[in-house]
């Protein structure tokens, strides 16, 4: 017995030892994401994590007007620009003296190289530019002047340049490996997994895709450094929510991203020393209905579902506060149409529409897919199931990893009947949530799981993009919204609150609304 | 009894606690071994011979209880000794040669290591001082090798490095003897020595052991179910039946004439010499939980009388040096038990 107690005592001793006293001194700012950085090459970045990495390692040509709390583009690498009257030629004057991490100056050559690279690689956000640009249409007029010659007027062009990151041409070309891009080999994409080729405020110290990217301050950053700015960042990926909460509560993390559950943020609000910031977002949460899959190919069935869903419960009880979505465009985005019809819960109407649709009751069987890591989407699914079963549907719920949903989205046959999607504005323009979601050119991506097709809408969207006059642009985009909502390709649920939590000594956080731009570590200061 | 007694067992009674109840396995036995004497304890399997030997060394299983009696060794009652004191007796003063050479050797250590362990750990000083006064390993090793040679093991040096599984049965048996004799005990308990072996090897080993103890001046208690063995090696024989001593006699006297009906039965089975005893007698050893109330042999006895199930026959000296526990024989000179 004595020996046994001894063992127990030893165990207790080991556990009670002040291990915490050995933890690292807090010199590194720890930011936690729940999704991995899928691409450290800015030309391949599409998701929030990858964009955050890009924004901190690279400079985009233009930057959102964060200071004014707006997402409109303002000068950044480009000091000023002019647009031709037909809206086709954009000429940018570059700022002088911007240095890459290699020490080289950033010049027009690099801008041309980076855009051509993006266009050739056809990854990331290149689809925004491919309709109007191709290699050869970007020219360096002199060391600090670049001209973009678009094939046609393109309404979202300026805004899209916020996603255009500039790479160090020399460094990339010195590090190419054999690859599919002819003389450019792999365009340095393997190299960019290990290092960066940017001019941004931080440089990549270490990157371990599954767990962590460590970034250190670039001392010669052209915007200069002020006291209390962050000098080193550990950008960690932690998938488990309970763990994320523990990390920030214990102070092992300084800031955690928006993907925690609503209840998680509620819980963090109660903790002294933690700030939970909530802002009305420009995000759309909607349930996309696959219009190519029966019975959802019937517009009356889709409308019936839109009438059956309990929006109030979703917004008040599941989102714990959010703006009711009115159409595909988030309500705070300029160009949103306030006059779009709004579906509200009306079981009688829903039942009537089902009857009118002529679909026999045994065919009313649908599948709802959601991202398995997001409990909110599961809750919405359970609510939808309850609502739809009330009007005679049979609903099956399925959680899938995000990667799998992206894969399912490639074909109408594999795309589930209904898929829950959070869609953040991709570029600061109404085009992102109209053309980007309802023009057939986007089919195959998670943004277009409706496979929506209405020739009238397609025509209006194309005209809107080509329109030069702002009023004309807006009129057409608003018309499109109205037409789309009538066809009910999605259940437009909410423009949720954007939430983020950080320790109270972190200052300077400002919500921008554009994917990734709120987590620019350069903007933060530490006040201890 | 001319010789000075080395070991005296007096009225030893041992019970076992079993699921069926209390088993009265050893029922008040007396046994004396003189200095330099070879004594045999014979009886059929299950009669309590091995238990007696284990009781001497204090190696009874946990469910055994010594109800009464004493085991005097050089005047000291072994039953009163505590664990550590008893341990110092074991091996150094009284050693046991185990019955089955295939199980009594540790399979995962070499012969040498097992021998050395005995010398190293059973040192006079006890465990604490061992570290300070560690005697040269070479010297201890030499003692082991010498002992192996003494028990007639060929090439004892290489034997030290072998594992028991590499040895023949006879060799293993010799190693067991070496282990027991290593500390030169005054008393050796040989439990069914060689039974597991070939007859010719058994004889050889018995003969060797007999010579060995004689030259070393040790006393031996042979435990055997084989009368032939007893006849070959012992000076005196104790016949045991069902946990009781039924007859004690000098070996040659016993083989000339047996008094107790059980002894007679035993010898009737002897002609083959190797055959186990009891085969010639009808019936089995009684149930120890509820044994016959008086004479335990009564149910099997061809001469049973009414008194046999009423009064337990005491062990009485019926002629000089011959003690018998049977109602057939009145005491020679008064009741001496």
């Amino acid at each position, binding site marked *: 017995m004595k020996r046994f107690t001894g063992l127990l005592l030893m165990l207790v001793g080991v556990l009670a030892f002040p291990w915490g006293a050995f933890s690292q001194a807090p010199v590194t700012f720890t930011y936690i994401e729940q999704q991995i950085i899928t691409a450290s090459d800015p030309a391949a970045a599409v998701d929030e994590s990858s964009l955050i990495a890009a924004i901190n390692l690279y400079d985009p040509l233009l930057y959102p007007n964060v200071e004014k709390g707006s997402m409109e583009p303002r000068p950044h690498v480009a000091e000023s620009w002019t647009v031709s009257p037909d809206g086709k030629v954009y000429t940018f004057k570059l700022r002088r003296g911007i240095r890459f991490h290699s020490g080289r100056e950033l010049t027009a050559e690099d801008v041309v190289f980076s855009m051509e690279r993006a266009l050739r690689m056809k990854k990331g956000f290149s689809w925004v530019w491919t309709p109007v640009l191709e290699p050869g249409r970007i020219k360096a007029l002199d060391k600090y002047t670049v001209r973009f010659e678009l094939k046609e007027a393109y309404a979202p062009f300026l805004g899209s340049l916020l996603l255009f990151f500039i790479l160090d041409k020399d460094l990339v070309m010195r590090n190419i490996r054999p690859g599919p891009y002819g003389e450019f080999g792999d365009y340095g994409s393997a190299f960019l997994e290990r290092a960066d080729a940017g001019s941004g405020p931080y440089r990549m110290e270490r990157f371990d895709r599954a767990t962590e990217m460590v970034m250190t301050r670039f001392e010669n950053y052209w915007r200069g450094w002020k006291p209390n700015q962050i000098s080193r960042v550990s950008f960690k990926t932690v998938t*488990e*929510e*309970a763990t994320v909460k523990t990390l920030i509560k214990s102070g092992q993390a300084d800031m955690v991203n928006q993907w925690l*559950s609503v*209840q*998680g943020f509620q*819980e963090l609000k109660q903790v002294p020393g933690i700030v939970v910031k909530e802002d009305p977002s420009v995000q759309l949460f909607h349930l996309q209905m696959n219009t190519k899959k029966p019975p959802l190919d019937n517009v009356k069935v889709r409308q019936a579902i839109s009438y059956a869903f309990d929006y109030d*419960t979703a917004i008040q*009880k*599941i989102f714990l506060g959010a703006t009711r979505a009115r159409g595909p465009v988030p309500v705070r985005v300029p160009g949103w149409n306030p006059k779009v019809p709004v579906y509200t819960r009306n079981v009688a109407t829903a039942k009537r529409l089902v009857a009118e649709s002529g679909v026999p009751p045994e065919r009313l069987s649908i599948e709802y897919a959601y991202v*398995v890591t997001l*409990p909110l989407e*599961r*809750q919405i*699914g*359970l*609510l939808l*199931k*309850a609502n739809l*079963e009330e009007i005679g549907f049979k*609903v*099956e*719920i*399925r*959680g*899938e*990893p995000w990667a799998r949903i992206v894969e399912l989205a490639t074909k109408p046959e594999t795309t589930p009947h209904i898929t829950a999607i959070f869609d953040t504005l991709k570029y600061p323009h109404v085009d992102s949530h109209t053309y980007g979601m309802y023009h057939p050119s986007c089919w195959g991506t998670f943004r277009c799981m409706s496979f929506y097709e209405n020739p009238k809408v397609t025509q209006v969207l194309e005209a809107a993009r080509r329109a030069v006059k702002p009023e004309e642009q807006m009129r057409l985009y608003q018309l499109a919204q109205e037409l789309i909502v009538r066809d009910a390709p999605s259940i437009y649920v909410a423009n949720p609150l954007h939430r983020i939590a950080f320790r109270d000594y972190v200052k300077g956080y400002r919500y921008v609304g554009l994917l990734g731009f709120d987590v620019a570590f350069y903007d933060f200061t530490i006040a201890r | 009894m001319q010789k000075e007694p080395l070991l005296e067992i007096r009225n030893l009674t041992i019970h076992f606690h079993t699921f069926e109840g209390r088993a009265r396995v050893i029922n008040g036995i007396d046994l004396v071994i003189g200095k330099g004497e070879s004594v045999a304890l014979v009886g059929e399997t299950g009669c309590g011979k091995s238990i007696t030997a284990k009781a001497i060394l204090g190696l009874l299983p946990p469910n055994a209880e010594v109800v009464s009696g004493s085991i005097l060794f050089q005047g000291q009652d072994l039953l009163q000794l505590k664990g550590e004191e008893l341990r110092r007796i074991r091996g150094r003063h009284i050693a046991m040669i185990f019955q089955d050479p295939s199980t009594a050797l540790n399979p995962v250590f070499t012969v040498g290591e097992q021998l050395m362990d005995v010398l190293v750990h059973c040192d006079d000083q006890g465990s604490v001082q061992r570290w300070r006064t560690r005697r040269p390993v070479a010297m201890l090793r030499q003692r082991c090798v010498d002992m192996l040679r003494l028990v007639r093991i060929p090439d004892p040096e290489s034997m030290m490095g072998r594992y028991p599984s590499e040895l023949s049965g006879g060799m293993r048996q010799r190693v067991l003897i070496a282990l027991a004799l290593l500390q030169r005990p005054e008393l050796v308990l040989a439990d069914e020595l060689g039974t597991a072996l070939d007859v010719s090897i058994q004889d050889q080993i018995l003969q060797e052991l007999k010579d060995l103890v004689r030259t070393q001046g040790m006393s031996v208690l042979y435990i055997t179910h084989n009368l032939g063995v007893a006849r070959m090696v012992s000076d005196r024989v104790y016949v045991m039946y069902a946990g009781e001593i039924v007859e004690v006699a000098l070996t040659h006297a016993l083989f000339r004439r047996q008094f107790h009906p059980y002894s007679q039965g035993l010898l009737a089975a002897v002609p083959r010499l190797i055959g186990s005893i009891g085969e010639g007698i009808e019936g089995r050893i009684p149930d120890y939980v509820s044994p016959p109330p008086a004479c335990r042999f009564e149910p099997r006895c061809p001469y049973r009388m009414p008194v046999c199930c009423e009064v337990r026959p005491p062990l009485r000296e019926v002629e000089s040096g011959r003690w018998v526990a049977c109602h057939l024989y009145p005491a020679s000179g008064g009741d001496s038990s």
Partner: protein
Amino acid sequence: MAETILVPQEIRATRREELRRAWSRFRSSTLALVGLGIILMMAAAAIFAPTIAPYPQHAGGFVDFANTFQPPSRAHLFGTDDVGRDVFSRVLFGARISLSMGIVVLSIALAIGVPLGLIAGYWSGWVSSLIMRITDVFLALPSIVLALAVAAVLKPTLTNAMIAIAFTWWPWYTRLVYGEVLSLKQEAFVEASRSVGAGPWRIVFKEILPNTWSPIIVKLTLDMGFVILVETGLSFLGLGAQPPTPAWGTMIAEGRIYMPANWWLATFPGLAIFLTVLGFNLLGDGLRDVFDVQIEQWRGGA
């Protein structure tokens, strides 16, 4: 086994006698009785869930957002979850899933594993060595790893999780039966029936198979716990039951993110798994002592 040749009736008689003795040995083991008690309790919970559960409709796609995250109380013994369902009711229904999962998986494993083991053990030749080499392949990987790989190939549903686990489980039974057959083949009673001209199928099914039951039963009991552990593990990783199915592993995965404030969501399903597995282990240990079989309980399970 005795050296004597027993005729079948005698075998049956001794078997009956053995069973009687076994039962008395079993009764004397407190832990085995506790295990049996736990399992009977769980089985009762599973069978009578619709009657016992205070809110049987909560096992399915019920939602009541006015009633979410209620801590344990008299109305909700284990509290309510993130959509307002009674956790106690769901845990009760979860017993149905876990137990039926175990039964189905092991039935499949038996149905595949035992015949293959009999064939491989009784006949020698390339077929049996092929069978045994195939089991080696399956046993070269911890079963949960293989089950994960299979489950990931299939759509995540409860049925597919079942298939995945059963797919990895049968070789253990082939192995077990194979070993038993090899030793039984040498037994006198088998030799005897062979000598009186019994055909191989008759020998295999009438003489050998009945004698392999005791190790199989012990293994089945112990495996029930392991299968449940593996199943809950798969569900925990999102490769098993889908909402609103009240599978314990899924409930832990779903409830986990609400820890520690709403601890009851993940705690009670976890306790249910623990108790069930404990019950089967206790019972299995008891049975092992009763039947006095040596089987390795070591596997790359959860």
